[in-house]
């Protein structure tokens, strides 16, 4: 919500905050941060040196425990237990009942089996978010890997390759929120009347087409949101693929070139097969990323006009609408999407470990 109406050019806005209280709060925050870092390092160092005072055959064991316990404890508390709890919660519902004596609402959890999942797959709005999510995890990796690959090949060994890479790589440094503002306010902006201030619509009108309300025009709006994430991920794909291309032996390309194989054929018959494993890694990494990102939808449309995705719906259900069991079910559905990737990754990691 806007805080104050801005009338004409006059800057009638509320003056808030840079008072003494603001600075004392911020100062305290910085001190808290500094103290936390120093205390953390001191505790770690003390425990490590303490473990070094142990003598004899126990020394190695104690030190091993000291080294791995923090990670294992953090993961157990913060990821593994919560993951199981979420799965359990997704089979339950929260029942609110007023206490017969005090009249205060109490929340109890009761088992409802697959009800949340059945709801997710039958309710049209939730089902739509699942279908949209599938579009995201298919299209984002394809677009960003495709463009990244093309660009990496085009600029390979070109003059100023490094600078050219930086241009496409740069969005990796920008937050999803920042990228959403860039595309929402600068590129996709649409004015119902008057001149178009959005760059894409200005170009469209310049070329004689009608302006498009990019974020409202169903079903294409999902595609425009997808492009924002692809825009960010392309740099990642490009950098990794570029490194792989440089690992392809030059001789192979030369020999093929002497044999009269043209560039297009060499690309498909030599370059792509040589970097196949890299392409798989890039595609899976981006697939996982596109499953989890909720920032873009939240920032640009809040899920309006049938653009919602599971990651955003999960957030809204769990933390805005307080329907945690259904939110948990959506989180589990997200997890189910990545299970094949987990299995594939674990198998290839074990292969690498075996060959060592």
């Amino acid at each position: 919500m806007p805080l104050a109406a801005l009338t004409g050019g006059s800057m009638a806005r509320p003056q808030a905050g840079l008072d003494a209280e603001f600075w004392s709060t911020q100062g305290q925050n910085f001190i808290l941060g500094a103290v936390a870092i120093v205390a953390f390092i001191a505790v770690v160092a003390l425990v490590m040196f303490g473990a070094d005072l142990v003598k004899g055959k126990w020394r190695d064991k104690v030190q091993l425990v000291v080294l791995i316990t923090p990670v294992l404890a953090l993961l157990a508390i913060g990821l593994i237990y919560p993951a199981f709890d979420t799965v359990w919660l997704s089979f339950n519902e929260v029942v609110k009942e007023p206490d017969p004596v005090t009249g205060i609402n109490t929340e109890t959890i009761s088992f409802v089996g697959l009800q949340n999942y059945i709801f997710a797959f039958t309710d049209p709005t939730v089902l739509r978010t699942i279908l949209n999510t599938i579009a995201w995890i298919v299209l984002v990796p394809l677009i960003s890997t495709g463009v990244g690959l093309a660009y990496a090949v085009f600029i390979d060994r070109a003059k100023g390759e490094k600078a050219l890479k930086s241009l496409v790589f740069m969005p990796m440094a920008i937050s999803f929120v920042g990228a959403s503002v860039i595309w929402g306010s600068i590129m996709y902006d649409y004015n119902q009347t008057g001149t178009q201030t959005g760059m894409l619509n200005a170009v469209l009108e310049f070329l004689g087409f009608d302006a498009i309300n990019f974020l409202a025009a169903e079903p294409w709006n999902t595609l425009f949101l997808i492009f924002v994430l692809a825009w960010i991920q392309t740099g990642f794909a490009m950098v990794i693929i570029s490194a792989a291309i440089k690992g392809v032996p030059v001789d192979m390309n030369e020999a093929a070139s002497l044999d009269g194989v043209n560039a297009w054929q060499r690309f498909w018959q030599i370059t792509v097969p040589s970097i196949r494993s890299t392409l798989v890694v890039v595609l899976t990494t981006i697939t996982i990323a596109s499953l989890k990102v909720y920032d873009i939808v939240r920032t640009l449309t809040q899920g309006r006009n049938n653009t919602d995705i599971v990651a955003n719906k999960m957030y809204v259900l769990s933390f805005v609408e307080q329907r945690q069991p259904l939110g948990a079910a959506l989180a589990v559905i997200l997890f189910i999407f990545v299970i094949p990737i987990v299995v594939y990754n674990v198998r290839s990691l074990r292969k690498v470990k075996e060959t060592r």
Partner: protein
Amino acid sequence: MATPAPAIPDETKLTPKRKSKAAEAKENLTSKWATAAAIIIAALWTIPTVGLFFTSLVPGEYYRTDAWWTVMFEGNLTFENFGIVMFDSFGDSTSAQPLLGNLLNSIVVTVPTVVFPLVIGLMAAYAFAWIPFKGSDWIFVGIFALQVVPLQLALIPLLRILGPEGIGIAGTFPGVWFAHTIFAMPLAVFLLHNFISQIPSDIFEAARVDGASHTQIFFRIVIPLAVPALASLAIFQFLWVWNDLLVSAVFGSIDTYPLTYPISNLAGDYGATAYLTPPAAFISMIIPLIVFFSLQRYFVRGLLAGSTKG
């Protein structure tokens, strides 16, 4: 015990330099069409950000009616918006906090959450790479698999653990640090493990023969040799935390919200303060862009180490 310096695995070899042969092998694919396509891609990946910068300079009274290039030709661009956003009020629905507060929050959230996972991750990475123990492989594979698990799966229960019914640090900086540190662990362990396991085993064996304990090896060998990997991970973690919205939205509060939070809220608002969204977004990008461009080398090295082996 001497610290052996020269044995650092040289990851720059991942991108071998090419000589004149390369010039011959070039050609063809760098045809006119390829060049044209490359230029279009480069433009499409750059112009939006440049457009954001110029839109940030458009005064409020022109924002809805004139595009930035029109305002520019009329000579009406101004840097005033940055000052308004930073020091006066920003149209966040939940507060009138100036963006400066969120900028400082971003720093307070980010710096500790870069340090914690680096230290804890390095300790575990050394153990998994060089201390043989029962189940080591399985645990490492498990941690690796956790990298892929969506954060969403952990949010609701972890919020309960950290919230008022649990230890009561949700909504404070320690709560946000704790959540960020946990979520950083799988990547930190995996990336650092990849690096440390490449250090030649002679170094560790020699140290063990000399009677060095794991603690001594950790401080005298692992930390000095892991500096490049730590740098890569630090940049990763910095960019990830600085740019994060989900963790800060769930585990933070009005006292801790970083830059992304109010900007995300304002972006959907087409009211009178809409013109403040572009300058706010631009401010949020300045520090990551500086970090990114000055330390790009380490960042790329981390990306390659994290995703091409494994």
